[in-house]
């Protein structure tokens, strides 16, 4: 990953020096393990703070919404798909962006690792040769395969390379195929449940929700100036932590992401209480793939399926 970081710095330097962009958006080293900070650089000193490794989880597409400047931006596979979605939805212009493509090897799951650790984690070390991650803290040290330490969305990811970019920081990584990994294994588990079991599953899933809206705000798709949960005329949903209101919020938010979600995992990563919000969104992603053959953000030309009508759209549900 060192080579990635060096290359990012080199490209950023060139972009700023040549005046091609006004700022470059990347990450700087975080003050706690597993958490780097989205950061913009406008000079050499700031470029020097850039870092790239498996702790750059928050989707940077969030940071270009409606911006007017010319921007250099790092983009992994999913980030680039969200940038493409932004372009399609008119939230940024392609010509404003210089996309520094990052072939991605996945991000570490901060919730999973915290749960594995026998105490607070103070350091995380990655051995790229061996493909392992070592977490340690006061009186413990544990080494696991990186594949086990990855965010779930990363471990099943089939688009690790950016779909749009101006320059890559390294050669493309090998893509996982749908034969090797089943992106929908988690969804299928829930689909196999009875209605009661499903209801109970989501009750349990959401029981810890504190409605901080980190999932929504970490999501690059959630850029509405006024979210439906915040509207008062009419008020669509209550604001307390009543289970019905909490579920309504999650259900409707997921639905607003249907056909647009790239499964970047920012929502899950941001959640302070570790709720797998993807249990909602992944189902919609699966349906869009199976019903419409659609994967979000693969091109800057096509609008998402729920945004368009075709005479041959499936309509079995209408009786």
């Amino acid at each position, binding site marked *: 990953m060192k080579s990635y970081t060096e290359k990012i710095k080199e490209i950023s330097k060139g972009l700023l020096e040549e005046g091609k962009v006004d700022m470059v958006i990347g990450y700087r080293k975080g003050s706690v393990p597993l*958490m780097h900070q989205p950061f913009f650089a406008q000079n050499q000193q700031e470029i020097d703070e850039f870092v790239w490794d498996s702790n750059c989880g928050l989707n940077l597409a969030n940071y270009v919404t409606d911006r007017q400047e010319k921007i250099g931006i790092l983009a992994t596979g999913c980030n680039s798909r969200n940038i493409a979605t932004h372009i399609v939805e008119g939230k940024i212009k392609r010509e404003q962006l210089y996309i520094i493509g990052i072939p991605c090897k996945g991000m570490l799951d901060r919730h999973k690792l915290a749960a594995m650790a026998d105490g607070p984690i103070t350091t995380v070390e990655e051995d790229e040769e061996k493909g392992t991650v070592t977490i340690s803290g006061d009186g413990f040290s544990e080494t696991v395969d990186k594949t086990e330490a990855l965010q779930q969305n990363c471990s099943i990811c089939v688009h690790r390379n950016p779909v749009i970019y101006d320059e890559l920081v390294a050669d493309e990584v090998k893509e996982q195929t749908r034969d090797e990994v089943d992106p929908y294994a988690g969804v299928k588990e829930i689909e196999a449940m009875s209605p009661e079991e499903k209801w109970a599953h989501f009750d349990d899933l959401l029981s810890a929700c504190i409605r901080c809206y980190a999932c929504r705000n970490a999501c690059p798709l959630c850029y509405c100036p006024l979210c439906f949960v915040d509207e008062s005329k009419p008020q669509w949903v209550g604001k307390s932590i009543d289970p019905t209101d909490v579920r309504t919020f999650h259900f409707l938010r997921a639905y607003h992401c249907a056909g647009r979600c790239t499964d970047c995992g920012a929502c899950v990563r941001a959640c302070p209480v570790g709720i797998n919000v993807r249990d909602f969104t992944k189902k919609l992603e699966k349906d869009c793939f199976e019903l419409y053959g659609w994967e979000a953000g693969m091109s800057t030309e096509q609008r998402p399926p729920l945004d368009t009508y075709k005479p041959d759209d499936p309509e079995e549900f209408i009786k």
Partner: protein
Amino acid sequence: MKVIKIDKNEWADGVEKLHDNYRLIGAVREKSYHIFATLKPGQKPEMEYVNSRISPKYVIYPQSEIILECSMDENDEDYKVYHEPGDKNYEEKAVLGVRPCDADSLPLVRRNFDTDEYKDPYWLQAFETTTLVGLACDAPCPSCFCTSAGSGPYNDQNLDIMLVDNGDHYLAEILTDKGEKLAGAAGWDKDTEQGAEDSIEKRKTGAESKITSKVNTDNLANQSLLDLYDATIIWEKAAFACINCGTCTYACPTCWCFDVQDEVHGRQSYRIRNWDSCMYPLFTHHASGHNPRGTKLDRLRQRFMHKLKYYVDKYEDGIQCTGCGRCVSLCPVNIDIRRICNMMNSYDPESCTCEVTAS
């Protein structure tokens, strides 16, 4: 102050007895971390845990709470006349194993809810009926900075009892009448052996030495409020990263802001108080459309200025933070209050520069 010894098996027996007299709240494991929750009959709190994910402030100040209710039926006596709900329950409760940093947040919050002019009956009644059995903290996190934020891992100032884990037994400081009463109800009264207070002191020094990160606050009161407010260098980068979620405020033991919402169900209307967050644009949004804190930067600055400057000036009693470190470890974009605090403390308005620390 009296110090007694509670063998760990006596602890378990005592907790069993306490179930009869108190609603007990303690740390329980929720999936991969701990939260504070009401214990079921017979259930014991976990005493070996990294501090709870979200602060236990909701024990006294629930995230959502019905504060008033009335009927919407013309035939009822309380038709459209709001009154306190009839089913409010302020039974005696005890929090077992609360950390000193969380207990130390209560007087900071109290000064908001208990003023000369107005008293919040809900917070105060819940607070007054709560006995706090604290657990001195031997397992601080890397994000903890309580020792430089007016608290400390062995700070017993705001507890009724403080337990110190001493191997096969707890050494228990009985600090208040409430604590005395609870110890009595649990049947804990064994004298300590000689040197107990020395062991506490020794453990305290050990725990404190584990806390290596700190905030500098000595210069905050001297800084000009408007200079800090205008110090772009402090706010710009953090505001860029901020996604304006409410994680920091909801996890924080010293944040208290709330919203009030009316809900009608059937023929009954409820006035509900919900936690709110200064991070949300709607928090200050006028009906006219104008928003005095309309940008991310405004809102992020409000949170830190509130805790580290406005309240330093208002109460002249230090920062509105006990150093529990939750916002540091939970912020999805790593905005670190320690870093911001040190920047504010060291800001030089002449040169518009400040010291930037690693954390």
